[in-house]
């Protein structure tokens, strides 16, 4: 069994529900999450903290915490069902076909191994290189993510590099085997705005050069707007709306999306018109969670919002809204 890079779509998540068993109860982290990414497409997963963005990414990578349990759904990547596939096959897929850039490069990199060695490790495991070729290829990768003086830097340890440089190393690691899908989990959080621009441009450039699909996970709607074709908005473990970027901003259909856009400061926003979203995420440990988890914060809520099923309004053109009373 192997991955078919030409599968359409490349990644399809359907009806995925995940819960975490904790001492204080079962947390229903994801509820019927579904979306698809085609080859070469860039998709953003946007939402507040705790909305389940990272859990979705970790589920694709198969690196969920031991307390997590997938209660329903499927994750099909390149024709393979990742949730049931053998461990041996999964090991071949991760790193080679799907790669992830973690939020904090300082904790994700091995602190006691030179960065060149860390890249060579991945190449030796997944790329068809010999032990003699690996160091040179690692230096080549460092050059590709524009680390100045890559030959000397290959021997550096993560603590010797700045945050932006470490994130470049993370990108080099992720892209070492030219994966078909790149998951970038908040790749620029904690970086400066100028560095953020450089890193995001680099990801976009390398992705388009290799026709790689990208899933960008971010809480920053403006960042998603700038780099992605499609945007999926998440709230409390549910995807509330998926739409091509232009349509999402021109005419958001889910009340939460509209609020999120109004709450994001832009070029022309004034303080008195900047919106806040009342309330917070519901307690996901509750047994009686309403069908629409946004209903308690929503101005348009009615009694039908509380009972399942949550309607899905499709609009052809790749738009999907999960709401009883869309705008």
């Amino acid at each position, binding site marked *: 069994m192997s991955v078919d890079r030409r599968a359409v779509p490349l990644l399809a998540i359907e009806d995925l529900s995940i819960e975490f068993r904790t001492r204080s109860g079962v947390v229903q982290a994801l509820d019927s999450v579904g979306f698809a990414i085609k080859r070469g497409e860039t998709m953003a997963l946007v939402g*507040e*903290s705790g909305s389940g963005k990272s859990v979705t990414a970790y589920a694709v990578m198969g690196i969920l915490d031991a307390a997590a349990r997938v209660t329903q759904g499927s994750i099909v990547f390149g024709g393979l069902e990742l949730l049931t596939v053998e461990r041996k096959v999964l090991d071949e897929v991760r790193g080679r076909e799907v790669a992830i850039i973690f939020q904090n490069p300082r904790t994700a990199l091995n602190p006691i191994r030179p960065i060149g060695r860390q890249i060579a490790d991945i190449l030796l495991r997944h790329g068809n290189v010999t032990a003699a070729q690996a160091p040179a290829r690692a230096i080549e990768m460092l050059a590709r993510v524009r680390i*100045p003086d890559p030959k000397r830097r290959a021997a550096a340890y993560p603590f010797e590099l*700045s*945050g*932006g*440089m470490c994130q470049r190393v993370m990108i080099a690691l992720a892209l070492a085997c030219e994966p078909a899908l790149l998951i970038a989990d908040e790749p620029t959080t904690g970086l*400066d*705005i*100028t*560095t*953020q*621009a*450089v890193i995001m*441009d680099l990801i976009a450039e390398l992705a388009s050069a290799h026709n790689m699909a990208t899933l960008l996970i971010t*809480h*920053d*709607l*403006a*960042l998603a*707007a*700038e*780099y992605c074709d499609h945007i999926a908005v998440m709230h409390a473990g549910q995807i509330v709306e998926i739409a091509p*970027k*232009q349509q999402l*901003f*021109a005419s958001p259909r889910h009340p939460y999306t509209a*609020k*999120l*856009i109004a*709450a*994001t*400061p*832009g*070029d022309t*926003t*004034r*303080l*008195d018109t*900047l*919106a*806040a*979203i009342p309330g*917070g995420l519901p307690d996901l440990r509750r047994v009686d969670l309403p069908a629409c988890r946004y209903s308690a914060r929503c101005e348009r809520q009615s009694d039908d919002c509380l009972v399942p099923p949550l309607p899905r309004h499709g609009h052809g053109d790749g738009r999907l809204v999960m709401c009883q009373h869309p705008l």
Partner: protein
Amino acid sequence: MLTAPLLEVSGLRKLYPMVAAKGWRRAPASSLHAVDGVGLTIGKGETVGLVGESGCGKSTLVRLLARLIDPSAGTIRFAGADIGTVPARRFGRGKERAHIQMVFQDATDSLNPRFTAFRAIADPLRRLSRLTGTALRARVEEVARLTGLPPELLGRFPHQLSGGQKARVGIARAIAVEPRLLILDEPTSALDVSVQAVILQLLEDLKQRLGLSYLFVSHDLNVVRLLCDRILVMYLGHIVESGPAEAVFAAPSHPYTKALLSAVPSLGNSATRERRLKLPGEPRSPIDPDPNVCPLYGRCFQATDACKTTMPALREVMPARHVACHLPALEAVPRAGPPLEPVAAVALRG
């Protein structure tokens, strides 16, 4: 701001000695120039934004102004009094401590996890305002009300509060002792976008009601634009540009400011990516920098020969706008038309 400024700083420097041991001998001392000759003013009732990338000296400058650390050189005058010469240790016990207060970056990290919200707010009141008993309780409840914190939450510990509520405790604690200058270090960076607006509006409201002045440190330029009257752009220990916020945003003058503003992502405007100005490479080393080279030299896309032989001084290029760059000399003549209008608007409002 026609009256004397509340805070007046000039020639402020903070050097950290770098002692590198070589065998049993100490190597010749070199020093890290964290803040290198900064001058600024903050008027009464003014909100000044301080922006710049990490490592540029923002935090050191803020700590100097809050008198948590001692400057190596320069003067800090607050409400007419020279406070720069008072050792930080003694300043913490003096009555002026209450006049300059700080709201720290991440409320989760800056609140004592073993203190209830009440105790967190009461602590500075006990120490600085010498309040006890019912007077103390009344004042804590009053500032909780001012910051929109429900009084029934005062008995809770930080882990029992939401991000927005913790931010309110951090603000309540700072304004409790009736400061005149509030230093806000990235007050919303740890908050979700859904509560960001509420906290920003609360800060604006408090400023109006209590007549505070703010120094607002942030790297979210979209937030700075919302709240600030004037902004200071800092790079490698130097202020490289200052001016009315709207004017600087409309027409940045220093190459670093231009690059910074062009990097701000904006909603539904993917055109910014094409016209982005990039700064290649990394900032110069802040250790023993050459005093005759512009700090941006090496990354600047407009560098000339003059940039590596003379350090550009901060000078007025347009009314109320200062830039430390050799280049704006070419366009120093105030241009008529749009870029200047916001300046006039701000001046009138102030």
